[in-house]
């Protein structure tokens, strides 16, 4: 439709203009992160640094332990993703394949909780974690995020689509239900599981408000929290700020370029956001 209303050239022109608007902040971030202090503040702006100042990265690392933040982010992201996958697989199987009393009610109550913004849970969860003595620990960063109603819902839908005959056949062959779940259902549900895992990784890596609140010490900070603190630590040295921002952004951009097919398809299918 737009093809007839506009010429091909116009379409490309508009899309390219939009693309420049989308990508410029990233290019500007990387370019600024490699500039000398003088070039950063140059007016008119210097687009490409005359020489690549990789020192900005080591300087940022010297001021704040981004390597430590990075390890924390990796630990939190990996463990909460594995945790969520495990709890989701078990729960989705129960909701899809086991006929038990109260199944519909329990599921409806869980779905209902999805309407509550997570910001509402912040204060009571903080109180719970302080009572448990978990504040400023990996447990606080990981355990509350190891189950997701949305993921259970998604996988349950997928499990519904697996033919029941498979489980009859497995039973005849003497395969236990638990083994059947892990050796037949889980491999079949790989596309759904990859979607769940990738969206979880993105959300977990970028999470800010929760880690901000449950961490006190520098050693426990994740990358976004460390980066936010760095804005005061680095002062007004934009080349360092941009180097630090690049360290936070680039891992997810790389993951996106590798797994882009799954991420885009996952978002289009689930409409899951943040």
């Amino acid at each position, binding site marked *: 439709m737009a093809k007839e209303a506009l010429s091909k050239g116009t379409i490309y022109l508009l899309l390219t203009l939009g693309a420049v608007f989308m*990508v410029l902040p990233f290019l500007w971030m990387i370019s600024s992160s490699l500039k000398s202090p003088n070039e950063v503040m140059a007016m008119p702006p210097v687009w490409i640094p005359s020489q690549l100042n990789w020192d900005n990265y080591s300087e940022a690392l010297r001021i704040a332990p981004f390597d430590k933040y990075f390890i924390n982010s990796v630990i939190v992201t990996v463990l909460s993703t594995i945790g969520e996958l495990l709890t989701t697989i078990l729960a989705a199987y129960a909701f899809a394949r086991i006929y038990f009393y109260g199944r519909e009610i329990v599921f409806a*109550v869980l779905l209902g909780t999805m309407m509550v913004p997570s910001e509402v849970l912040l204060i009571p969860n903080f109180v719970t974690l302080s009572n448990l003595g978990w504040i400023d620990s990996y447990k606080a960063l990981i355990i509350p995020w*190891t*189950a997701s109603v949305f993921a259970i819902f998604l996988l349950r839908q997928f499990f519904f689509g697996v033919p029941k005959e498979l489980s009859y056949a497995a039973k005849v062959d003497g395969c236990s239900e638990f083994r059947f779940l892990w050796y037949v259902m889980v491999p079949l549900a790989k596309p759904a599981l990859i979607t769940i895992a990738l969206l979880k990784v993105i959300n977990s890596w970028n999470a*800010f408000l929760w880690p901000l609140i449950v961490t006190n010490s520098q050693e426990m900070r994740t990358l976004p929290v460390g*980066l936010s603190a760095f804005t005061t630590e680095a002062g007004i040295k934009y080349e360092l700020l941009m180097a630090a921002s690049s360290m936070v*952004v680039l891992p997810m951009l790389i993951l*996106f370029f590798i797994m882009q097919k799954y991420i885009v398809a996952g978002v289009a299918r689930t409409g899951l*956001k*943040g």
Partner: protein
Amino acid sequence: MPTQPTWKNTLKACLYLLPALVILITFNLYPIMKSFFISLYTDYDFFNDVVYEYGFGNFAKLFQDPNFSKAMLNTIIFVIGVVPSSIVLSLAIALLLNTKIKMMGFFRTIYFLPFVTSVVAVAIVWGWIFHSDYGLINYFLSWFGIDPVKWITDPVFAMPALIILSIWKGLGFNIIIFLAGLQNIDKQYYLAAKVDGASAWNRFKSVTLPLLSPTMFFISIISIINGFKVFDEIFALFNGRPGPANSTLTVVYYVYQKFYEEWQFGLASAAAFVLFLVVFLFTVVQLIIGKRFVHYH
């Protein structure tokens, strides 16, 4: 295999559900109720977890607090600033991408980039782009003879800066959803309209828009709800403050201030509860309007 619930199955299901339910009950279900109770704590000692007094005082206090009204108003301005323009822009881009041009995948990737990146990091980058003396935006504006704008430090321009950042961040998500919606529309409708001699605009108005209304409906709900929850962007763009002169103080930011900076758990929970009610209300209103105008096929 049984298709009727049995006690044996119920016991088995409990084992399968146990890990998920322990987490969800502790960190999702229980806090929903607890949150309401905390909002009734009018005198609370957090360090010893002792409540001296209950009541609705926090809600009264909340509605008398000019900062809370300001936060509510700012949040509404933010939603109005972001949602319609983001929907129009992303629909336009999705329509352009849907023309089966070459490089469609490439463009889609580019538009989607902000979605996967940390809000904090990109907000810091945008803070640099908005810099009043050395920022890119003011440099571009200088081409048109416009004097430098103090995006981050002037209360008038802080909200527009926040809105620009948020539109940029959310565009890719909406585009992907719109593209999926567009690709679901049966090509035969267009063919029929074409045979009848409908112009491109008429086909958009009478075929695309009505058939896209469920998608539009879904995106509006999600965008409004997410707009009401804005926080990370503000914290990072304005360096841990709610903008100059509270100009970007939003409801979640207010909750954060009362909770984490002032340790007024009761008041913060009351504000969070109001946020929940507003989000809930919008969902219901949208559902009612959606039922009347949305065309499901």
